[in-house]
């Protein structure tokens, strides 16, 4: 045995330095690095959210000393505000139309694209390009396309009607539609714009999901005698579940916050006509920045926050399934 320093003093007890294990030290370094983005996030996201809850309890004035405490009176006012109820109904309707439409269309296009070998990147770029186009520009152009007298949609409908009348089948013709001028058609029209714009993102994530399914499952199913439809239903769909959950949650959150397209598509009557396209975010914006009732607008944002939280939690609970083959 080598002679060590400790052996020189045989009666001194061996002092063991308290040293952290390697994994603990690694974890501490990780926390240290995470602290900066966390502080950043907390300051820019969490703190203003708490502030806005505080604002919703006061009557707004630019001078902080003159902001009177009102308690929950704005929340009571929300119970009897018909415009807010309309905005709430519209927002839920937007989500009910846009989310399933995006899911179905996105999945369909992704499945088709997955079967294509050549030119797949080109098609992917084409489908993704609406997603990277500014929402305001999209809404402006679509607003013109929906125009009753000058828009392409009505031109197409009129051309079609002329065509079928020429064929002697006038009952097939479709008259020019009012689109954004009709309170009944305006909301679906705006929803169509949102679906069109968000579709690219859905296609990309579903494509990625499809490519993550191992071929062996398809081969095994084919050997067991499954047809194409059965393979889709029993192999593809279950294994795509995480992607579908992600898609539904992300698009629900985005649709519940819908603002850009609504505001820009009908500039003369934002949220109109007659409030038929009004969403909660647009209503909050009008109350806060056209009428300067920032206290009430903050209460509306708290309502939106609670709504999104509840919907997301419900979706997570209901939709998530662990699938293992």
């Amino acid at each position, binding site marked *: 045995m080598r002679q060590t320093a400790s052996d020189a003093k045989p009666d001194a007890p061996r002092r063991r330095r308290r040293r952290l294990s390697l994994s603990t030290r690694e974890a501490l370094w990780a926390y240290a690095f995470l602290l900066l983005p966390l502080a950043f996030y907390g300051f820019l996201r969490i703190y203003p959210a708490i502030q806005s809850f505080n604002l919703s309890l006061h009557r707004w004035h630019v001078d902080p000393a003159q902001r009177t405490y009102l308690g929950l009176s704005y929340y009571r006012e929300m119970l009897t505000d018909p415009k807010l109820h309309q905005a709430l109904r519209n927002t839920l309707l937007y989500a009910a139309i846009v989310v399933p439409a995006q899911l179905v269309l996105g999945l369909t296009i992704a499945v088709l694209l997955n079967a294509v070998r050549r030119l797949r990147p080109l098609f992917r770029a084409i489908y993704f390009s609406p997603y990277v186009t500014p929402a305001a520009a999209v809404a402006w152009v679509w607003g*013109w396309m929906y125009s009753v007298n000058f*828009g392409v949609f009505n031109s197409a409908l009129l051309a079609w009607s002329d065509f079928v009348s020429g064929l002697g089948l006038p009952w097939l013709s479709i008259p020019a539609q009012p689109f954004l001028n009709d*309170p009944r058609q305006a909301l679906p029209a705006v929803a169509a714009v949102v679906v069109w714009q968000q579709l690219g993102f859905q296609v990309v994530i579903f494509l990625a999901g499809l490519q993550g399914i191992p071929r062996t499952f398809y081969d095994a199913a084919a050997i067991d005698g499954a047809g194409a439809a059965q393979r889709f239903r029993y192999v593809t769909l279950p294994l795509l579940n995480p992607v579908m959950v992600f898609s539904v949650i992300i698009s629900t959150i985005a649709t519940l916050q819908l603002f850009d397209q609504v505001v820009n598509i009908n500039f003369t009557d934002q949220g109109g006509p007659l409030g038929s396209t009004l969403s909660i975010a647009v209503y909050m914006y009008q109350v806060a920045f056209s009428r300067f009732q920032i206290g009430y607008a903050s209460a509306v944002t708290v309502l939106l926050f609670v709504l999104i939280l509840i919907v997301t939690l419900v979706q997570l609970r209901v939709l998530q399934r662990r699938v293992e083959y």
Partner: protein
Amino acid sequence: MKRAILGLALLAMLGAAFAQKTTITYWQYAYDTRVNAMDQLIAQFEQANPDITVKQETFPYDGYQQQVAASLPAGQGADVVQLYYGWLDTWMNAGYVKPLPSQYFDTAALDKEFIPMAQAAKRGGEYYGLPTAVRSLALFYNKDMFQAAGIQGPPRTWDEFVADAKALTKRSGSRLTQEGYGFAPNGQGHNLLREVLIRQYGGQPYSADGTKVAYNDEAGLKAFEFYTGLVTTDKVAELNFVPGDNGYRDGFGQIGNIAMIVDGSFAIGSVKAAAQFDWGVAELPTLANGVRSDFGSFWMNGLTPNAFKDPARLEAASKFLQFVTSESAMKLWLNVVGELPARASLVADPTLSSDPVYGPFIKSLAYSHATQFVDETAQRQVFMDAVNRVILQNQDPAASWAQAAKEEQAVLDKAHGM
């Protein structure tokens, strides 16, 4: 050591130089001619006041109020700010503008020097700002179209107006290709209804103290029926014929498929620049009883809480405000922007009232009313919804008008704290 002393001395001199110069900021919305005019005024002002620097910052019209709402609470933003007079109540209640300081502005003198419309900038007997220029409405018409249709001159009565519009409305199949009248309730249409038609039919929009809606009577209903009838019965117009913000103006000036529009004097610049045809301006038509009425409005320059932060800033801001509302500034504004002067002395100028374009506007200032809005956005929306209910949902005008009266009364009640 020497270097340090030299450095400190330089710093002190710089500091002194900066301390003597007061910098104030002016905000208005971005519109080429107005920014240009203000740049010229600022240059003149800085020459006359070498110890004051004025910075002009502009924002797109759509985001203008939001900029104010976002920056003033943070103690940033303008000292002198331009606001639409119809926003005064909302801004005043939120604390974004303060009354003009009495040591620089004498209320009694201002009452005499400015035209009566400027009273709409007062609350509780104090001025919250002053206008450089005012606007009123007039009828813009396409002279080439009139000539082609064989119509001699602009319509003088509403009956002539409808007849002319009918002659100038063209359709191709079911589609409207040319509109006789650029129907725009969101633009100036709601003002046309509120301050012109209702009064011409013998009614008035609000009670004398401004707290009660007064148009829910026979006169008001007749005005509403006439206005919506332009689309439903006379069929000389459609909603959103030309899409986009200010589509009616684009259709008249740029595209040239609208024969007549009712627009403010602020449109003169855009129409002049865009129109490739011969156009004219006329006073608004009247009914057979010849009663004249017009809607006047203005953008006012006010002082924000920032200006009151210290006496030097307040003095600089007040001096600047006085300068931009002086006679010489108004003359420059008229030449560059084409907006009408707000001082009584200039309005009486005979060369102005005989001008073919400005004349109808100047003449109308004598009978123009500026609505005392409590919440311009909400009140405009009430009229837009009333018109939409009749045109888009085929509701009976009487029912829609009664509902509008109820909705607007709720807005007024809320604003007056009832």
